[in-house]
């Protein structure tokens, strides 16, 4: 991303911002609420007025955004439905089924989303995001409103399924960033500035009990607090 200006409701969120996201890896953008993380992600997705998508992207929001009148399987295939490409849809269907099996929803294919729990719905949304099969995946606090244990489970699942894709994930949770990010960038200030690359050691998903990781978490929290 080069020389981006992000303006939201007349406020400059970021000026002359250039960022590199390493291909095939997960970059976590960490920042406090209201710093402009979501605006940055929406800018990358081409969802802000005047912004253009950086190419074909798959986008996962904080809410699951499952359509209540479609079955879980149809929701996962939504992109193919909307693009009205019957042939692509036929080839995508086995992948949709396989993804739903991976996220543990193999026996809920034909159920409506309202019959699922919050964690299951978010897993279905993850399957939908991956079913789009795009190299760039943008995620906006995808596990933000789940309970702590469900969130850890989903992080493990996401780390496995997102392997080799270029992922930009926005989060306010230092632990989440440390578990999933090959690289972490801290966003702070107004308009926000992006901190240097932090690359924690070890393969993702990292163990939440690891001592080095917890020390790094303390450092990140300190940085977030001072950078307000």
């Amino acid at each position, binding site marked *: 991303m080069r020389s981006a200006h992000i303006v939201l409701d007349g406020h400059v969120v970021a000026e002359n911002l250039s960022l590199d996201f390493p291909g095939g890896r997960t970059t976590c953008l960490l920042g406090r609420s209201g710093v402009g993380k979501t605006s940055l992600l929406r800018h990358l997705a081409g969802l802000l007025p005047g912004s253009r998508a950086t190419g074909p992207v798959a986008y996962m929001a904080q809410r699951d955004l499952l359509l*209540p009148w479609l079955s879980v399987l149809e929701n996962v295939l939504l992109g193919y439905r909307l693009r009205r490409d019957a042939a692509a849809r036929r080839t995508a269907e086995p992948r949709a089924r396989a993804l739903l099996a991976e996220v543990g929803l193999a026996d809920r294919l034909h159920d409506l989303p309202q019959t699922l729990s919050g964690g299951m719905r978010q897993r279905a949304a993850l399957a939908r995001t991956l079913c789009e099969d795009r190299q760039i995946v943008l995620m906006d606090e995808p596990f933000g409103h789940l309970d702590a244990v469900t969130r850890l489970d989903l992080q493990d699942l996401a780390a496995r399924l997102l392997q080799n894709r270029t992922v930009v994930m926005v989060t306010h949770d230092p632990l989440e960033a440390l578990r999933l990010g090959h690289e972490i960038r801290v966003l702070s200030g107004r308009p926000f500035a992006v901190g240097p690359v932090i690359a924690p050691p070890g393969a993702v998903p990292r163990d939440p009990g690891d001592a080095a990781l917890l020390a790094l978490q303390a450092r990140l929290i300190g940085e977030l607090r001072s950078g307000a």
Partner: protein
Amino acid sequence: MRPLITALGLIAAWEALVWLTGLPPYILPPPSRVAVVLVQRFDLLVEQAAWTASEMVLGLALGLVLGAALAVVFAASAAWRRWALPLVIVSQAIPVIAIAPLLVLWLGYGMASKVAMAALIIFFPVVSSLYDGLRRTDPGWLELARTMDAPPRAVLLQIRLPAALPAFASGVRIAAAVAPIGAVIGEWVGASAGLGFLMTQSLARGQTPLAFAALTILCLLGLALYTAADRLARRLVPWQPPQGD
């Protein structure tokens, strides 16, 4: 069960009132007298009821189809919104009842003028309920569709339209409750058949019990139409559990 007991209580009170005050039947017939007429003139009542029911159902269907089509056109086309939407809103300033005589003048004493009247009276609630629903799609869904490169037509038909169905369902319920008014007003103004026609005729001849019998059937028709529309409305949104009750 409880509303039924209330209704029976009210009917009993009505019977007692007539009995105590000695009001003549051409002013206020007792329910027992209405019931007798209902049985005696049942064939006539059924014949007229079939006529009125056809007007209501056809008017409802016509109003729903035209109203829904226009709402979709408004949602799809900015030009239509700019050129025609204000007109539809302003047209609500015309009291529909006031143009009933005109409809009879143009479309005759037959069924067409009543169907038009019923369709016209429900047209606005149908258009506005569906159009409002189409405008209030969850922006999150629309953004998701945008990242999926969905064409606008697919977004309208596969996201905005289904998302608007709960709003449309309440429009259908209102329409079913209001459509009988259109049909009956049409019959009062000028008709050669129907329950409204039967009412004006029998009142003019002092046959008040027959008018009440027609009114009773009319209530049942309205109730049946509403129940049917409510069923239809629920089938439109199977993913929404029925609320209340």
